[in-house]
């Protein structure tokens, strides 16, 4: 009797395996963004709330810990009043911080009139992703498209690797596919940025293929050169976005060239508020190239 029941159950498991196999094959052959987008549409508000709640809980925990002695000596009304005032202060600080950040972006916008910027908030981080990709709360409905560059007020963060109607997945520069042209702003020498898992763990990017007589040195600022790399993610970053500063220059393990370790200007592991560059001069040409080559990411 039990064996018969186990046979039936095994049959059900096999059926699920076949179904999931078909689903995998269909998503490999066609885009998964339709179904994924529908589910993301449902999950996004919850992700947004959980991310906001987490921030609020952290802020409240800090608030309680710092003012505990004072609160003990006061009555219930004053506690409520203080909490209320503190909450207002937190909101004020948040708004002030956001305002300051927007001012910085305003400078960037003034320098680059062709940029179309879209503010976004990080709402999720995938723990199962080897390279720590993040999810932001803006999607195709807001004008985000695949391979759009993503920045913070400090510099380049990564690119949009997948777009859903109301959210997007952002891959950071610590990903193995993050290969793009870069330039030393002091010496004007160019190289190709890339990243290995080990260098990402240490918090550095690599600027490869520097000449053996290179003048690149510690402290130099590295910016994007505006050139795409064939083995890269398939998109293009605009020129002169800050990537980071040179930490050291060493000889390559595989050839006679040198490489520079670059400390990213942006906290790539814990970004909070970001901007998506939805349009810039040269983007349409990059999109055409991506379309003709079939993309790479």
């Amino acid at each position, binding site marked *: 009797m039990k064996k018969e029941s186990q046979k039936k159950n095994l049959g059900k498991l096999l059926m699920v395996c076949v179904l999931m196999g078909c689903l995998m094959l269909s998503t490999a052959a066609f885009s998964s963004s339709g179904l994924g987008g529908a589910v993301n549409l449902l*999950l996004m508000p919850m992700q947004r709330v959980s991310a906001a709640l987490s921030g609020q809980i952290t802020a409240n925990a800090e608030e309680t810990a710092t003012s505990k002695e004072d609160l003990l000596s006061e009555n219930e009304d004053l506690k409520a009043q203080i909490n209320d005032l503190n909450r207002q202060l937190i909101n004020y600080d948040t708004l002030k911080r956001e305002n300051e950040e927007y001012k910085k972006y305003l400078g960037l916008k003034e320098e680059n009139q062709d940029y179309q910027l879209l503010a976004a908030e990080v709402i999720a981080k995938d723990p199962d992703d080897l390279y720590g990709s993040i999810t932001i709360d803006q999607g195709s409905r807001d004008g985000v498209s695949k391979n759009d560059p993503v920045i913070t007020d400090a510099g380049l963060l990564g690119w949009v690797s997948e777009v859903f109607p109301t959210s997007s997945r952002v891959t950071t520069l610590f990903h193995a596919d993050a290969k793009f042209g870069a330039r030393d702003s002091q010496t004007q020498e160019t190289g190709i940025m890339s990243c290995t898992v080990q260098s990402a763990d240490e918090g550095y990017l690599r600027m490869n293929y520097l000449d053996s007589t290179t003048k690149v040195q510690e402290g130099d600022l590295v910016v994007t050169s505006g050139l795409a790399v064939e083995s890269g993610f398939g998109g293009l970053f605009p020129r002169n976005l800050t990537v980071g500063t040179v930490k050291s220059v060493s000889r390559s393990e595989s050839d006679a060239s040198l490489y520079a370790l670059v400390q990213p200007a942006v906290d790539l592991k814990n970004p909070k508020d970001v901007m998506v560059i939805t349009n810039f001069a040269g983007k349409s040409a990059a999109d055409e190239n991506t379309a003709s080559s079939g993309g790479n990411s």
Partner: protein
Amino acid sequence: MKRAGILRGMAYGAEFLLLYLLQQVPGLFPEISYSLPVLLIPAVVTAAFFEEEVPAMVCGLFCGLLMDFGSGSFLGAKALEFAIGGYCVSFLASDFLKTNLLSAVVSTLALGGIFTLLQCIFTALFPGNSESGYLLLYHLLPRTLYTAVFAVPLYYLNRFLATRLRAPADP
């Protein structure tokens, strides 16, 4: 009897959805050795200890699909892994394993380890990543250990759900 089953299913569904959201909240869990815990693995394992093979498989399928939608990769890949994982754990728990905390933690480690190896093979080794060994040693194995810690509270939570939301005649 049926009502209790539906209630239990709904409770598991809510639990898995909440855990999925929690594991994705940026900055909620501290990174240990560059890793974050995948809460849905211990959730499926501990639920499978208290359910029969098919309901355990459905739990795995639900969690796997959530992971698939979140990761944006092949839909169905994680669902397949989790469904087979849930089925196997339930099968082993009914015939070969004692239902206790130690078994749950060891099973979470074992299943997490298998998932880790599969991920390393399919996302690092096969695409030609020369750092597969480093990834396995410094990222994936610490993540498996980190994840197994959460088997403790989830074992008690799922035991509570399974015992409270069950009709007396249920197996």
